[in-house]
């Protein structure tokens, strides 16, 4: 009898291992079904949609950090670039109607309130392309990729690596955050982009639109996941792992690592920008706080908790940490003990330390140990420098 149970268990474990991505997608699709069945509210769906958008950012970091070994602390900057692109589109089509400047261009409501000189107000030129959705989407992908390739060109060519790279990208994020907070930049300062109303004609507060956004985000995530998987499995992906494990040796073998690094950095910036574009309409506001240094490091936690160097780990880590965050930043009482939102940083801090000290490959290893029934286990990723 035990024998039979054992065999069933093995079968289940094997199935879990083999069809894990399929099961995950099925879970993702089941959420709208639950909503339609009336088991969960649209707010829950919306929240999960946002987390899926963040999972895109985690995937992008995983590509750069987990596979190529470059700890990048400006992922939130790329995320925000995409978010601002979409936010500017939404601001154009939101808020109270009827504020038209001299040139006959409608000034977005959130920008208008920042002008001191109401009469002479003009919409800045760089807002105008974002009136059109196709241009917005194209720019939302292109701008982060362009910025990343410029940063990458200067930083990778001079062989800045490891900790130096992390510090520099952190400084870039800080500088960008300061710039976006300035009122003079006509990017709505610390208020951020607000008063969103409709996306391509669909009102954002409508439940169907929100459900649609969730489904689009899920589709985007699946697509990007598949793309990343293609990259990883290709010869290109092997070069990336080689860069992580021994860049010097790769250079001596005749490769130019900086080209590969620039490429993967730009691709990852594009993915993060896509995440931002999907996040903005679901959040309903986009402010510079989304690009703080802290946010960048949070992305690192998601990936680290999930398991870097595994695409599934990045997604799982994002969902797990964010759901935990969602739960632990409200007050709970348990057997006379009170949990306060104030304690959340302790959880986050210990997550950092515990993962780094005891579980460098995140929950992905636990999952692997639970489900992998084949005797030979996949080679462990070497400690990344």
């Amino acid at each position, binding site marked *: 009898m035990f024998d039979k149970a054992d065999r069933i268990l093995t079968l289940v474990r094997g199935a879990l291992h083999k069809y894990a991505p399929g099961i995950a997608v099925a879970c993702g699709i089941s959420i709208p079904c639950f909503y339609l069945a009336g088991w969960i509210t649209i707010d829950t769906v919306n929240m999960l949609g946002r987390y899926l958008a963040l999972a895109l950012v985690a995937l992008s970091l995983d590509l750069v950090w987990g596979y190529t070994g470059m700890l990048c602390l400006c992922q939130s900057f790329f995320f925000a670039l995409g978010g601002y692109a979409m936010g500017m589109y939404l601001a154009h089509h939101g808020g109270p109607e009827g504020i038209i400047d001299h040139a006959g261009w409608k000034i977005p409501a959130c920008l208008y309130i920042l002008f001191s000189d109401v009469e002479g107000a003009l919409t800045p030129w760089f807002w105008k392309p974002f009136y059109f959705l196709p241009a917005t989407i194209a720019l939302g992908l292109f701008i982060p990729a362009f910025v990343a390739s410029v940063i990458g060109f*200067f930083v990778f060519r001079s062989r800045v690596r490891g900790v130096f790279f992390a510090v520099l990208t952190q400084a870039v994020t800080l500088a960008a955050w300061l710039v976006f907070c300035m009122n003079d930049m006509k990017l709505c300062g610390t208020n951020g982009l607000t008063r969103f109303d409709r996306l391509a004609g669909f009102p954002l507060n409508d439940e169907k639109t929100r459900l649609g956004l969730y489904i689009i985000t899920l589709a985007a995530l699946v697509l990007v996941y598949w793309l990343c998987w293609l990259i990883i499995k290709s010869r290109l992906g092997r070069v990336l792992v080689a860069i992580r494990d021994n860049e010097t040796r790769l250079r001596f073998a005749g490769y130019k690592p900086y080209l590969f690094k620039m490429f993967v950095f730009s691709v990852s910036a594009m993915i993060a920008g896509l995440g931002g574009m999907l996040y903005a309409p679901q959040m309903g506001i986009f402010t510079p706080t989304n690009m703080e240094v802290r946010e960048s*490091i949070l992305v690192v936690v998601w990936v680290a908790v999930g398991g870097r160097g595994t695409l599934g780990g990045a997604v799982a880590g994002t969902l797990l940490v964010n759901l935990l965050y969602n739960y632990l930043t409200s007050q709970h009482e348990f057997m006379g003990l009170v949990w306060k939102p104030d304690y959340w940083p302790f959880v986050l801090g210990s997550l950092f330390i515990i993962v780094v000290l005891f579980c460098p490959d995140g929950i992905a290893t636990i999952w692997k140990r639970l489900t992998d029934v084949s005797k030979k286990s996949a080679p462990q990723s070497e400690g990344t*420098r």
Partner: protein
Amino acid sequence: MRSEFARFAVLISLFGVLMCPKPMGLLAATGDDTLHGSVDEALVGAELLKLADSDGEVRRDAIQWLANSKVGRVGDALEAYRLGKLYFWQGKLVTATPVEGSGSKYLTLQDALTGQPIYQAEATLLDPLLVVAKADLKSLVASRKERPAVVDAVRVLALYAEDPAVRLNAVKKLGDLRNADYIDELEEVCNQDSNDQVIFRAKESVALLQLIDTKKDLTVRQHAAKELGEMASARAGPLIEDLLENENTDESLRKVCQQSLAQIESYQGVVRILGYIFSGLSLGSVLILMALGLAIVFGQMGVINMAHGELMMIGAYTTYEVQQAFGHSMPDNPVNEFFWVALVVSFFTTACVGLLMEKLIVRHLYGRPLETLLATWGVGLMLIQIVRIRYGDNIGVNSPTWLVGGVEVFQDFHLPYNRLFIIGLTVVCVAFVYLLLNHTKRGLLLRATVQNREIAATLGVNTQYEDGFTFAFGAGLAGIAGCGLTLIGGVTPDMGQNYIVDSFLVVVTGGVGEIAGVVCAGLGLGVLNKILEPMFSTIWGKVLILAFVVAFIQYRPAGLFPPKGRLADV
């Protein structure tokens, strides 16, 4: 081993000797003799007593008389009178201080004229001060009618105060009032005062008043304008610009004014540039102070300590705790010694925290610098939250009294004492680290570990011990930096975040091969920052600095002073 400790002790005591003598020489008030004794004390007392008279006419005459008495201390009494803090008690005029804890129901008294405390008739040893219930005092307040006269008298009497700083202030204030009535008083100060600065400012004020007085003779005004130009007076700048814009200004006066303005502007330009350089040095020294610990730890172990800013914050909060323990508070109860104790205590507190971090976390992560970065960031996050829960969001640390104010090196060029102190502190810390690394056995062992860990271990160096020492020492330096920063900035739980990225940039630019790298990069970035800031804005200045650093590492990827040996390849 013993000789090593002896050297270490010598270093520590050297540190102490350098730090300990209070820079009192800098602070002692310059030359100080006043004009008093021109009027009979008793007479002044009698006139002052008339303020308690019920007849308004008598009071008005008394104020008039007192205003001309040229006794500085009368000004204090009149100021108290204006504010309603002057009391009539048993035939005397007194000011009062509330007894602590009585909720200002009970007060101790001081003589209004001399400021001497009033003692009990039969003094007991325990508490000789006389304590009076508030109900027994009769408060005297200047009536609405008297107030302008009192204000006027206070202003003029401040010219005769004993403290030269008060006189200096008074002289400046009268010049800025644009009221030509004060010229006579100011000229008298010019003739009689003994302090050069006061005389200089008095002359400046006289010239200012003469220049704007349209009733004055044109030649007098021209002369005043010329004089102001020669003085390179900063205060005259806007006034002269006003005159030049005014169409009614006489042509000849206009010409003199233009000349003077050019003189003033060229001088003030030089002063401004010197000011930028000084604030650049000051910012640079803060950055060095921060980056020193960071660079030592990074050079030794390849570990970027993201909690460095938080260790600094702990140093600042330790300073706060020491201040509370000493009961130091700003004007009431200054206990200046607290600061020296705080420097030492912050060093050791943060060193302990650092040691704990090293033992529990960092030592398990050697060879994995990126993961140390994450783990230390987690520690920093928790430290911030602990402090936030314990202390709330904002607390105040008061500087010692001798660090308040500044010294005017030459005309219009002020150097605040706290900034000077931080520069001094940085110099001492850098010297200390240099001596420790290059002239002690401990330093030799540290350098050996940096250059080749394995060989050093083979030769009997306890590299784990060295690592622990380095980490704790770097953390301690962060504590000293935090203690120093309380002098120039607010103390908040996330204060570390404001400086940390900048000090990372210093480490990146300077390289970790030598301390000189940190010093050069810190000063360079500090001065560059302060020069760029006024040219662009603060934020664009920062962006430019970043661009500069990125451009710089194009051809010096490992910083100004790249590390030697095998670490170079990490």
